[in-house]
């Protein structure tokens, strides 16, 4: 709050006071008061006005300045009224009252939305849990009646499971409380189990994996990261090139406390303008349109999950040559090694 601006707002008061001052001056002149006395009287009046203005200005300034400062700095603006003290002047009190009322409304709304969202998430997780029994039964029925039909059904069942997984992690990606657990994980075990999970697709498309330098322990959540790798493998398989023998190379390089795992394919790659946008939700790009139906969810989810886990995820690609996805982990160090060998 600035004093000049305050005076600007008070121009009517200043104008009225000026008129009265002028009139008083005129009156004093008429009754032939000595000039010195006139000056003293008018001076008192002026000083009175100034003091009045200053007092009023500073009491407001204290309140509004604090309010503004908190409004700018505090993240939880919905709790603004908790931070300031109730002012002594009426306008401030009205503002304070409205602010409190508004915040209560806002917080109630947010809480009910949050509760609703949580209920929905709980439902999704319960549903995912329930659907696994019929899937397990179907798998066993297929195993007990092996032929061409059940073999192709089994492939479709793989796809169903992948979609279910994606839904589960989509629900987790915006979760209010995260259920991951960072532990020391063998990078080799992580990669191998992801590859095995996607073995059927890779074999069907004749994509062969290669592994380099994976004997490192990293800090991450095994299940979440397995899902992330699964999406990356899935993309590598989906966008393989027909011109050469498709390959997926998993290689890890350790730099100090950090481990960079890169998954490179020799697939169709993508144009530079698509690379910038791959992590956006719903982005399908030219490949997604031309080659297979893409939902634009996979890499978006990877990005969100990696952010939560604190893993840096990046992607580079050259059209016609292939794509490299890199993940940056922290090494587990010696303690992690001990824990794992004990298990």
């Amino acid at each position, binding site marked *: 709050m600035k004093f000049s601006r305050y005076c600007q707002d008070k121009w009517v008061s200043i104008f009225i006071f000026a008129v009265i001052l002028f009139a008083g001056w005129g009156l004093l002149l008429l009754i032939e008061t000595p000039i010195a006395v006139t000056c003293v009287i008018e001076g008192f009046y002026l000083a009175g006005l100034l003091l009045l203005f200053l007092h009023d200005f500073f009491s407001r300034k204290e309140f509004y300045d604090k309010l503004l400062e908190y409004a700018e700095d505090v993240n939880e603006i919905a709790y603004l009224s908790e931070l300031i003290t109730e002012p002594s002047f009426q306008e401030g009190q009205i503002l304070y009252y409205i602010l409190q009322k508004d915040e209560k409304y806002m917080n109630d709304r947010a809480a009910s939305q949050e509760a609703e969202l949580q209920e929905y998430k709980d439902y999704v997780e319960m549903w995912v*849990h*329930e659907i*696994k*029994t019929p*899937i*397990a*039964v179907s*798998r*066993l*029925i297929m*195993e*007990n009646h*092996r*032929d*061409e039909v059940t*073999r192709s059904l089994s492939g479709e069942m793989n796809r169903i*499971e992948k979609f279910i997984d994606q839904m*589960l992690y989509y629900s987790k990606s915006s979760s209010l409380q995260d*259920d991951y*657990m960072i532990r020391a994980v063998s990078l080799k075990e992580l990669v*191998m189990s992801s*590859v*095995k999970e996607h*073995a*059927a697709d890779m*074999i*069907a498309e*004749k994509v*062969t*994996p290669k592994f380099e330098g994976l004997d490192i322990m990293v800090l991450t959540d095994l*299940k979440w990261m397995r899902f992330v790798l699964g999406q990356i493998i899935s993309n590598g398989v989906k966008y393989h090139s027909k011109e050469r023998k498709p390959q997926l190379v998993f290689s890890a390089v350790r730099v100090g406390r950090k481990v960079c795992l890169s998954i490179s394919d020799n697939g169709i790659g993508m144009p530079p303008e698509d690379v910038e946008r791959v992590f956006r939700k719903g982005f399908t790009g030219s490949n997604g349109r031309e080659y297979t139906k893409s939902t634009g969810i996979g890499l978006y989810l990877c990005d969100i999950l990696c952010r939560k886990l604190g893993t840096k995820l990046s992607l580079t690609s050259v059209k016609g040559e292939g794509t490299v996805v890199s993940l940056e982990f922290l090494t587990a160090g010696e303690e992690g090694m001990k824990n794992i060998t004990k298990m």
Partner: protein
Amino acid sequence: MERIYIVEDEARLRDELCSVLEKNGYECIAAKEFDRVAEDILREAPDLVLLDLSLPVHDGFYICRRIREASNIPIIVVTSSNSDMDELMSLNQGADDFITKPYNIHILLAHISAVLLRTNGHKNSLTLSHLGLTLDIGKSRASYKGNYVELTKNELGILKNLMDHKGTIVSRDELIRELWEMEEFVEEGTLNVNINRLRKKLADMGLNDYLKTKRGQGYII
């Protein structure tokens, strides 16, 4: 024959699981009532228990604890929840292994035989036989009429998978997958080489044409 006790409340799943396990040479007992499961298990004294966590009456943790109070029967907990907490709890209650639904049946079988091997030692090393050929998985050796050949890891995997599915066609992709499960990430060419070597070894023992090719579909024994 090793006996497996299945505790699973979903009837279809239980029945199908039983027939898969029976096909793979195990004897199955399944609980149909759930109020006295632990007692029933202790009375039956099976070689292994497959225990679901979410059950009517008592949950799996309780049953696991009850069994452990009286016996060291190996227990594999099977659950559809994907949470670390359940895994941790199961292991704390004395379970030997933990597997999540929907499991790949081969992985479940691998877990079962690993747990059995761990608890029983090598005393009954798993053998499969079909049409006079016996496969000793522990020794990685195939024998026929008093002759035997040593098999490499890949050859063993291929022959085991074919014998597991005797009488039905196994596709090339499935065989490759079996090898990938063993962390041998082979390609088609390698599979061909392995199959040819396996055929030659079988022929050396006098088993010609044991492993038949079904054109465009796969192999069958």
